[in-house]
């Protein structure tokens, strides 16, 4: 086996692993509010979302112009660089999952690739205007637009349903939520599976396995990506679902439906008008809006602040991991470099997984009362806490993942 083929195989495996983390990281985007409001049981929600993600992935007929096209100089992209970028994306996805922070998987991948590019050739390989105008500013725009639309929708819903018995209205909105959540899942499947397909497609082209003029990736790529993402979705990123559905705002079904409609419509509109907005930021904006729009609802701005912080450091930290990985893989070089890089990724992922087992969040306790941060009150062996205690607003119990992120790439 020659080195390029070995690298190609590693890149494909890593890309599918990224797709898997993308799936479970983003389950919450579509399903968190349905789970929190009781519209769907946690298991039913992730199953529905997985099926729709799978279906959505097959609906893509064109490979999204690869994610990095306008962000880095395409002629400088190598297999080692793609691998390093993917590692940056995966490690950041896992860390934010551990902390229960919904952060954008696309941003993590972009950060990883940009970081690896800087490590490889320096800052001139990066198209900085593209990074700002296509990644950073849209993130802010997403939150603001979705927040407005979600707030207006929620306000209208509560205004129009004034006088309707709460039980009746919540029941109706729970049924409505199944449709709105499904729409978000489908849109997500179509958008996000393309991202990984694009990366694998790029790798295949650069290896020469696929012609440069091919319009569609081989069928196995589509099938593998769709399955990896659906599997990830089914696994369910419970920690993130909990933050989205319980931590940020206590979601009732009318708010949930308003938030999901806002998310689905904005994601579709942004695709229609050719201004790609990140799903995660759109959904977070909508959920915040649904808290602002409901009279008397509480928004935990402390939790929102932690998320915003995580978003700000996504690019630099995923980039750092990408850069370190590139140095390791390229510095050692050859088979050994790639193998060591891959080994480090597996070790880091295992360490994060083991850490997450200390306080487990799963389908059984995902809706337990929020007590100031993600895992507070969950320690009692899977038992959802039911005591109605004084609630600590805001969640600043945990620090962001700077330290583990550095540890991640260091041999």
């Amino acid at each position: 086996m020659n080195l390029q083929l070995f690298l190609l195989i590693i890149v494909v495996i890593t890309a599918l692993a990224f797709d898997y983390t993308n799936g479970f990281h983003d389950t919450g985007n579509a399903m968190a509010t349905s789970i929190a409001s009781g519209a769907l049981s946690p298991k039913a929600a992730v199953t529905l979302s997985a099926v729709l993600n799978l279906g959505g992935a097959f609906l893509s007929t064109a490979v999204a112009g690869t994610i990095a096209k306008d962000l880095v100089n395409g002629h400088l992209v190598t297999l080692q660089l793609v691998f390093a970028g993917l590692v940056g994306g995966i490690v950041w996805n896992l860390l934010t999952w551990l902390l229960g922070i919904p952060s954008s998987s696309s941003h993590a991948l972009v950060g990883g690739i940009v970081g690896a590019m800087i490590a490889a050739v320096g800052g001139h390989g990066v198209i900085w205007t593209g990074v700002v105008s296509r990644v950073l500013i849209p993130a802010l725009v997403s939150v603001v637009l979705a927040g407005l639309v979600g707030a207006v929708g929620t306000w209208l819903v509560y205004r129009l349903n004034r006088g309707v018995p709460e039980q009746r209205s919540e029941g109706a909105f729970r049924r409505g939520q199944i449709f709105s959540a499904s729409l978000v899942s489908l849109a997500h499947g179509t958008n996000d599976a393309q991202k990984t397909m694009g990366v694998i497609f790029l790798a295949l082209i650069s290896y020469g396995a696929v012609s440069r003029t091919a319009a569609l990736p081989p069928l196995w790529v589509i099938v593998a990506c769709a399955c990896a993402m659906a599997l990830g979705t089914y696994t369910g990123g419970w920690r993130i679902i909990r933050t989205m559905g319980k931590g940020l705002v206590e979601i009732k079904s009318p708010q949930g439906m308003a938030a999901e409609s806002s998310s689905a419509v904005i994601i579709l509109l942004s695709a229609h008008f050719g201004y790609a907005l990140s799903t995660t930021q759109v959904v977070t904006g909508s959920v915040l809006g649904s808290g602002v729009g409901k009279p008397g609802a509480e928004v935990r701005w402390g939790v929102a602040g932690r998320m915003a912080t995580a978003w700000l450091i996504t690019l630099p930290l995923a980039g750092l991991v990408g850069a370190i990985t590139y140095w390791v893989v390229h510095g050692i070089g050859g088979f050994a470099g790639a193998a060591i890089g891959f080994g480090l990724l597996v070790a880091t992922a295992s360490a994060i997984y083991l850490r997450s087992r200390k306080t487990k969040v799963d389908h059984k306790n995902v809706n337990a009362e929020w007590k100031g941060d993600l895992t507070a009150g969950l320690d009692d062996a899977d038992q959802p806490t039911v005591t109605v205690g004084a609630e600590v607003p805001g969640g600043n119990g945990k620090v962001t993942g700077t330290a583990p992120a550095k540890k991640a790439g260091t041999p």
Partner: protein
Amino acid sequence: MSTWFNYEASLKILIFGLLLGSGLPALFALAVRAGAAGAGVVGSDGTAVGHKNPALTALSWLLYSVALVAVVIGVLYIARDFIGAHTGMYILGAKPA
């Protein structure tokens, strides 16, 4: 459109977002309200009035169907290129590749 910030697209997304993204749940809320009133569950002050009103119930179902149609259009929109590529019917602005 400036280099840094796509004003035009953002404004369009906001306007259509408010119409559709906020309008759809509002429509659904109207359907819920009409349904509740039609079933005689509620009066204007929230107290039970006790008599049914088939016209309001019908209106409620009409509004629910409009909302459902909107969701179906959403799904067709997502699938439009796929449908176009496989059936030759290019709907909702899909373009042949």
